[in-house]
C-alpha cells in the first residue's frame, strides 16, 4: 500500500483535493502556482494592485462614491436621458447586473509577498515531508531515472525544461493546480483542454525519453 513511505492514492487524493477547495475557502480565490510565479515576477505591478485592492476594501462606501464621481465626470456632469434609459433597460433585462454577487467573496489579495510566501511554503512543506520520511539531505543529484536518461545533459534538461514550464504555464494561463485541479473540477472548457494538452505532451515526451535509458 505505501510505496517507499509515500501515500496511497486515496490519501493523496484527499489531501490534494482538500487543498484545491481549501485555498478558496481560506483566501477567496483559486490556487494556481503558475499565477503565483507570474505574480512574483511582476512584483511592482502586483504590489500596486494589492494596494489598490486594500484601499477599496477598507472603505467600500467611499469607493462607491468615488466611482459615481468618476462616472459623472466621464459623462460631463450629468447622465443624459438616453443613457439613463439604456441603464434602466439593462437592469430590467438582466437583474443580475445590479445585484451583488452572492457566491463569490472578494478575493483577499496578499500581493506579491503573499505569492512569495506560498512559494517559500512549498519548500518548507517539502522539507517537513522529507524529514518525516527520514530522507532529508542535501543532494546534488536528482533521482536515478533522471540521470539514466540525461547523463551529462542533466542541468541543461532542468534549465530548458524549467523554461518550457514557465513559458507554457503563462501562455496557457494555468498549471497542474490552476487548470489541472481547480479548472477541471469546475468543468471549465479551457482547463479541460489545457489539462489534456499538458498531460498528453508529458506522456509523449516521457515515453520518448524512456527509450533513452
Amino acid at each position, binding site marked *: 500500500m505505501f510505496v517507499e513511505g509515500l501515500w496511497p492514492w486515496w490519501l493523496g487524493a484527499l489531501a490534494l483535493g482538500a487543498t484545491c477547495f481549501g485555498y478558496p475557502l481560506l483566501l477567496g480565490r483559486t490556487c494556481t502556482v503558475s499565477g503565483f510565479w507570474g*505574480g512574483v515576477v*511582476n512584483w511592482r*505591478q*502586483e*504590489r*500596486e*494592485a494589492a*494596494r*489598490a*485592492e486594500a*484601499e*477599496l476594501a*477598507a*472603505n*467600500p462606501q*467611499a*469607493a*462607491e*462614491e*468615488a*466611482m*459615481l*464621481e*468618476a*462616472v459623472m465626470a*466621464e*459623462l460631463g456632469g450629468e*447622465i443624459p436621458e438616453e*443613457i439613463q434609459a*439604456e*441603464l434602466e433597460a*439593462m*437592469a430590467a433585462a438582466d437583474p443580475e*447586473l*445590479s*445585484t*451583488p*454577487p452572492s457566491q*463569490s467573496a*472578494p478575493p483577499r489579495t496578499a500581493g506579491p509577498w503573499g505569492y512569495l510566501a506560498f512559494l517559500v511554503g512549498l519548500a518548507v512543506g517539502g522539507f517537513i515531508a522529507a524529514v518525516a520520511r527520514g530522507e532529508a539531505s542535501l543532494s546534488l543529484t536528482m533521482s536515478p531515472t533522471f540521470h539514466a536518461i540525461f547523463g551529462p545533459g542533466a542541468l541543461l534538461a532542468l534549465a530548458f525544461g524549467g523554461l518550457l514550464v514557465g513559458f507554457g504555464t*503563462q501562455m496557457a494561463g494555468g498549471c497542474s493546480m490552476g487548470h489541472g485541479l481547480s479548472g477541471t473540477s469546475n468543468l471549465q472548457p479551457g482547463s479541460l483542454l489545457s489539462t489534456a494538452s499538458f498531460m498528453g505532451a508529458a506522456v509523449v515526451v516521457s515515453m520518448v525519453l524512456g527509450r533513452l535509458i
Partner: protein
Amino acid sequence: MVGCTRQSDCPLFERFVVSGSANIWRLLYCDKEEKFKTCARYEAGINGRTVPVNLLPNGQLLRSMRLGADDVC
C-alpha cells in the same frame, strides 16, 4: 452581446454593484464593438500586465475620497 468577453470576470462590475453606476462603463466601452479594445483594463490585460482593481476603462485610477488624489504609493 458583442463586445468584451472579459465582462463576466471584470472586477469593476463585481466590486461596484450597489450604486449600479459602474454599468455605465458597459454602455460606454464593453458593449461597443471596437470601443472595448480601447479600454485601459483590456489593453493592460492583453499586454500581460496586472490589472489593478481601480483602473477605469478610460485610463484613470479610481481613488477613494478618503485618501485623496495625491496619495502616491
